[in-house]
């Protein structure tokens, strides 16, 4: 299912107005994969949909994130990618044959999109989208001269009624009758296993590429099942700089992403719940150059769902954490505290109940657990022989 971009669509209009002159960030595979990070966070969903640059907005709010990549990590990643792709992908072909048993011709036909003669910007992206589509059409149509590799293709993914251009740093391989996504990553696979967080992040990102490839094929009238759900990760082997290839099945991530995407009206619903019109009126009253107040008002009007993992995933994390702390949000302390006392909504209430205050009607059972914990601590203090 492919949704068409609706230029005059009220939702995108509202979103654009919400952002106003706040710094804009173009969505990419990483931000789209973030749909899977914390899907129940309204704040993140709306700000992402409105293409607000979260990093810059957090800076306006006085709590910039501390992310960023070391120049050495960046350099290593680029060197590895160059090495693998050198000499018409010689090394890549070798590991794909050796490690995952792919049958690839000796003479690869590669295809890379180009922007020669087109002005940069949306037009250039559109040109690359068209080139990528043409190449895919030839592959799907069984053209004998179709490329085996599409490098740096650009495809489109529709999120709600926002159109996202994805620059695939992934490669699409065509062998037999299957298209395969192949991503070059800088982290090592040691004796067949790698850090789960890194593999997870790579899988989520690949699922985004996979979804957009499927949509493109469907648009071309081809079978979306042409793209395999097995993504190949090219990583360094053990502690060497030699490459190794491993298959990762991303069906689960893809399903999760599709579920998020199919809630295409969700931003619309969210905006309705928020009574965005009133918010817009308030925002419009602000002075044009007063970006701090604008960011403050917009962000604080959007309900947050802070969990500790946000700190490693989201640029807004420090802003949200301060708010979560001020409101006594149990989620701030992690899922185990949250599981027990989420219903009370505030850890200060939980503390009072443990100290003897009457629990509210919806918190009778939690009250028993907290009191029992408190009395167990007291009782064990009197234990004979206790130190």
């Amino acid at each position, binding site marked *: 299912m492919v949704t068409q971009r609706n230029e005059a669509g009220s939702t995108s209009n509202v979103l654009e107005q919400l952002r106003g002159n706040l710094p804009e960030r173009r969505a990419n595979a990483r931000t789209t994969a973030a749909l899977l990070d914390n899907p129940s966070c309204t704040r993140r969903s709306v700000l992402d949909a409105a293409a607000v640059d979260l990093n810059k907005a957090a800076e306006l709010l006085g709590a*910039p994130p*501390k*992310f*960023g*990549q*070391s*120049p*050495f*990590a*960046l*350099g*290593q*990643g680029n*060197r590895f990618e160059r090495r693998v792709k050198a000499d018409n992908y010689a090394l890549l072909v070798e590991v794909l044959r050796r490690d995952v048993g792919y049958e690839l011709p000796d003479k690869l036909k590669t295809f890379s999109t180009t922007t020669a003669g087109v002005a940069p910007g949306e037009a250039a992206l559109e040109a690359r989208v068209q080139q990528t589509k043409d190449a895919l059409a030839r592959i799907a149509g069984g053209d004998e001269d179709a490329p085996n590799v599409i490098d740096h293709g650009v495809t489109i993914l529709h999120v709600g009624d926002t159109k996202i251009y994805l620059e695939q740093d992934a490669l699409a391989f065509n062998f037999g009758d299957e298209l395969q996504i192949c991503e070059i990553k*800088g*982290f*090592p696979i*040691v*004796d*067949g296993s790698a850090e789960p967080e890194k593999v997870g992040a790579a899988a989520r990102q690949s699922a985004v590429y996979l979804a957009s490839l499927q949509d493109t094929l469907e648009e071309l009238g081809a079978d979306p099942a042409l793209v395999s759900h097995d993504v190949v990760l090219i990583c360094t082997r*053990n*502690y*060497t*700089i*030699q490459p190794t290839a491993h298959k990762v099945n991303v069906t689960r991530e893809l399903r999760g992403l599709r579920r998020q995407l199919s809630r295409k009206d969700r931003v619309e619903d969210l905006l309705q719940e928020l009574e965005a019109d009133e918010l817009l009126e308030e925002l419009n009253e602000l002075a044009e150059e007063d970006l701090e107040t604008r960011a403050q008002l917009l962000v604080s009007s959007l309900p947050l769902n802070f969990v*500790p*993992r946000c*700190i*490693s995933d989201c640029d807004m994390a420090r802003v949200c954490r301060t708010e979560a*702390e001020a409101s*006594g949000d149990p989620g*701030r*302390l*992690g899922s*185990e*505290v949250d599981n*027990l*006392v989420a219903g009370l909504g505030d*850890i*200060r209430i*939980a*503390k009072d109940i*443990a100290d003897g205050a009457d629990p509210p009607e919806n918190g009778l059972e939690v009250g028993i*657990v*907290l009191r*029992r*914990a*408190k*009395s*167990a*601590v007291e*009782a*064990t*203090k*009197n*234990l*004979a*022989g*206790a*130190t």
Partner: protein
Amino acid sequence: MSAVDVLLAIEAATSGQVQRRTTVRHRHLEPEPLVIVAYRMAGEAGAPLGVMYGTSRDAPSLLVAPEPRSIGIRFRDVMNPFGEFLCNWLDPFVEEREMRQARHRVVEDCINAPQILVPNHATAGFVGAVLGRSLRYLRTEGDGAVPETTVLAGNHFTWFEQQSALEGSCVLLAATDLLRRHFATGQSDLEDEDLHVLLSWVDPPAGKTGAEAAAEMELARHSGDKPGAGPTPDADWDRDVLDPLLEVFNEQRAGSNDKEVVDRLSGDIITAVGDALAHSWDATWRAHEILLEMLPGNTVEDRWESDRRAWTYHADRVRDGWAFFRIKDTAKQAAWMISNREDALTALEAGEALDDPLVLAGLVAGGEALIGEVTALDRDNKEQGPKNMVTRPLIDLELGEPCPLPIGSTSYWTVRPGKAKVEVISVDGSSVGLKVVAGMTGDLPEPGTIAAFADLTFSSIPRPKAPQATPWTHVGAETPSIESEGPDDTE
């Protein structure tokens, strides 16, 4: 996380003060462990930039590879000397023995096991898994040969990694893990992994709450005033401090790995790395100091004793020149390892709960243990046994709240775990009738005292003898063959 832990986290968050999770220390701590703090090159999994190490806070040693991506420099300036140091440090632990009469023979036990302390979980992984795996298969002859001590150090590191996977083992400890086990902060586990911030909660400067000190420390971490505790340096430090220095260094040495050239040009990088690692060094020793002040629990030494036994086994293999490790365990090894870990976990949980009322409280709050006042003890109660009348003392316990255990469940008096076994025979509101079904001849809780009962033992579940050959159900897992490896230049 028990309900007590949840409560403590809430109390820490609402008061801004750290809460004690234990009344005693549950891990063995050597007064002079080997402390290791390290940075590695970002983007390179196995290339250390600098290592600061030593067994005395006042006398750290420092090794720096000014360009860790060059194998020549990496091995000459860090890996090889560090490997040699480790082997020398471990040598007395391997060699110093005491005789013990075992069943059929005399065995030579190592006198003590070594202990390594690192700032955080990530450094433990770097020292154990990464250095272990990346060094232990290196060649000692031919192309890219390294000294034998480097390879042996890799095997030692692997032993530390594998042994520390046992719950309660104390051979390779992370300061963040230790502090978290003994203190509850008002932040999440993820944030607790930053040693500097965690330490601010635990040990705030005078006049500040833990929460205030931690917030300030976090700002210092953000602004770059306080570098990260490793092993991956801050992206900011990499960009602002290391990158410019490295650029100058690489330009001046013009591709030369010559010792004389490198030594002459690397002064600024060594100083910068040393300065950055010093923060982490001090924090790790401060954590050591705080924890060493706490009294150890009674069973801590029993667990250290199993570490010593495991070390002796490894040390024997080292003496025989046979301390090798596979890439992947065989099915039998894996089965043995899993049951070992299960036993270690059971022993740890029981030991901690019996040593520490605050840990026991977690079991009571979860309905897994009973605590109350003994209201009556009938030592002479007799009932009909299989043949004769037998003594089965009865205990009445007043809990003050409904009994969480069903009739018929059994547990042990916590003063005589594994011996004084009781069965719940009646429940009347908050008073419980218990019958002593084992260990009736020894001490029993006296009326008027507070007693606790929990199903805690130290005995492991008996397991059948492993078959000689691997059964067909467990064959087929590929065990990659070990080939010697040469290190790679990533320059």
